[in-house]
């Protein structure tokens, strides 16, 4: 098969991407730092750090602990706020001409809707990714991602507030992720992203205290890949909307596994910390794999392991 017949193009609902490799929220900042390592316009999309209406300080340090083939973080959704993002960060991404997906969250249903409306009215944002799943919960906050009735309500509110493609990012810390995916689809999501981090912790045996100031953090990296892959598999069985797969991807092989499980596109998170140019290596690897296997379009991979 000749190289030129291969296309990496993929559609996430109305969102058309030149390739399926994006960055996972919270691991790529607002894109600027990685531009020192590679031409970020080559990415399928940049998904920015989760934003809220007001800037947030996040949790106390220490916030990072390494674990076996993984890491815990308890950043706690520190962010510069939507206004500052639009003013100070978005212009750079626009100039680079890379599709921008804005990850966002709120503390209440009206806040979610207001954030979505504000972002939806901003030029240069190509899709919204709604984080209902961050494990750094404050005051029962996590119910947005774990109680289907609340999940449904908050998604419907956001859906009404914006016409941008709406991706709902699911929490893996639930009994039945398929049900959560279906809930999101029914409430109007255009796509699912799965998974966010698993809740976890680590303890310092000398001080006898949790290693994270926040006690509990989110586990990411290769350690969680088998869990993430299985959850994408379950989501694919339960919904028709596209899925963005993530959780421990560090190689093209990992990315292809997620596509075979049902993902239309993939996001790389912790992998960026191991190798800042990892997304480009994954992109190359997917292309080589398609060449070797005589695959011309990602459609020939999506869900093929089912």
């Amino acid at each position, binding site marked *: 098969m000749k190289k030129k017949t291969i296309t990496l193009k993929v559609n996430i609902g109305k969102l058309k991407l030149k390739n399926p490799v994006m960055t996972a929220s919270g691991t790529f900042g607002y894109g600027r*730092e990685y531009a020192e*390592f590679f*031409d970020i316009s080559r990415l399928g999309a940049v998904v920015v750090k989760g934003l809220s209406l007001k800037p947030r*300080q996040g949790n106390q340090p220490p916030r990072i*602990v390494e674990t076996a083939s993984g890491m815990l*973080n308890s*950043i706690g959704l520190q962010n510069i706020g939507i206004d500052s993002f639009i003013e100070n960060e978005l212009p750079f991404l626009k100039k680079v001409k890379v599709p921008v997906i804005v990850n966002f969250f709120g503390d209440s249903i009206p806040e979610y809707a207001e954030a979505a409306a504000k972002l939806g009215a901003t030029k240069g944002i190509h899709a919204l990714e709604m984080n209902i799943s961050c494990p750094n919960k404050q005051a029962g906050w996590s119910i947005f991602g774990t109680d289907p009735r609340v999940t449904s309500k908050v998604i419907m509110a956001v859906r009404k507030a914006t016409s941008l493609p709406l991706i709902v990012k699911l929490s893996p810390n639930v009994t039945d992720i398929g049900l959560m995916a279906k809930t999101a689809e029914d409430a109007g999501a255009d796509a699912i992203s799965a998974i966010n981090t698993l809740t976890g912790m680590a303890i310092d045996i000398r001080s006898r205290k949790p290693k994270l100031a926040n006690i509990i953090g989110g586990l990411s990296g290769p350690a969680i890949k088998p869990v993430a892959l299985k959850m994408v598999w379950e989501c694919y069985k339960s919904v028709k909307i596209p899925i963005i797969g993530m959780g421990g991807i560090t190689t093209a092989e990992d990315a292809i596994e997620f596509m075979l499980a049902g993902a239309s596109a993939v996001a790389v998170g912790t992998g960026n910390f191991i190798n800042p*140019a990892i997304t480009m290596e994954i992109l190359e690897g997917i292309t080589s794999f398609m060449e070797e296997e005589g695959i011309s379009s990602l459609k020939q991979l999506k869900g093929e392991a089912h």
Partner: protein
Amino acid sequence: MRSWKYVLSKLFKAVVTENKRLIKDHYLLTLSPLKKIKKNRPGNFFMISVESGLDPLLKRPFSLHRSTKNGFQILYRVVGKGTTILSNKTPGDILDVIGPLGNTFPVNNKHRNILVAGGLGIAPIFGLADSIVNSPGLEQPLLFYGARTGKEVLCKKNLADISIRPVIATDDGTAGKKGNIVKVLEKFLKSGSINVNEYSIYACGPKPMLKALSALTNKLGIKGYAALEQSMACGIGTCLGCVVHTTRGLKCVCKEGPVFPLNEIVW
């Protein structure tokens, strides 16, 4: 497709040219990058992959100790899994590195510069001393250097080579004065003959030392800077994992530091 490689600059492979055990668990690693890297300056650090597998997963941060003709040196102590693996590297091994990262010590051209190192804090402080000595027009810096014991006083020969005679203090008195280097510095600064407005302080060392130092400099109103440490994941300011409290809010050690004004650090 492959054109992304042209922009790679802070990401490079480096070959180990030497990995010398200095004392006990202290090593000096000399790396020679396989391509031209950005100019590095005292205070900068590098994130080094000690393993090509997935455990340990994250790169480890190490301060620039000293630039060499073909690369740079890292002075490190074995404290855990990553540094143990690093200590087993031999010449010819190739490591993935990113850097130089972080800011630098803002040396004051008009002041007499006082350097304060505690333990492994000598790693960046030696590099700073070296660079000041080699900057035409700058006065010879003073070095206050504290260690647990005489054996752990490092870089003696290299310091002599650049004509720096450190004021030393050790916990057990086996070298220099017995006791706390910050106390020794305090005595010096409070001695009648010193005008604190003509001095700037640059420090690196364990947290208790830096805390004591910032109490001292704040009290005396003397300008000072310290290089801090914090657990890191990305090293470039994207994960927000490495924050410390400052009077201007939470700041990333990797990007907004590692060097911070002593009077801005909230302990």
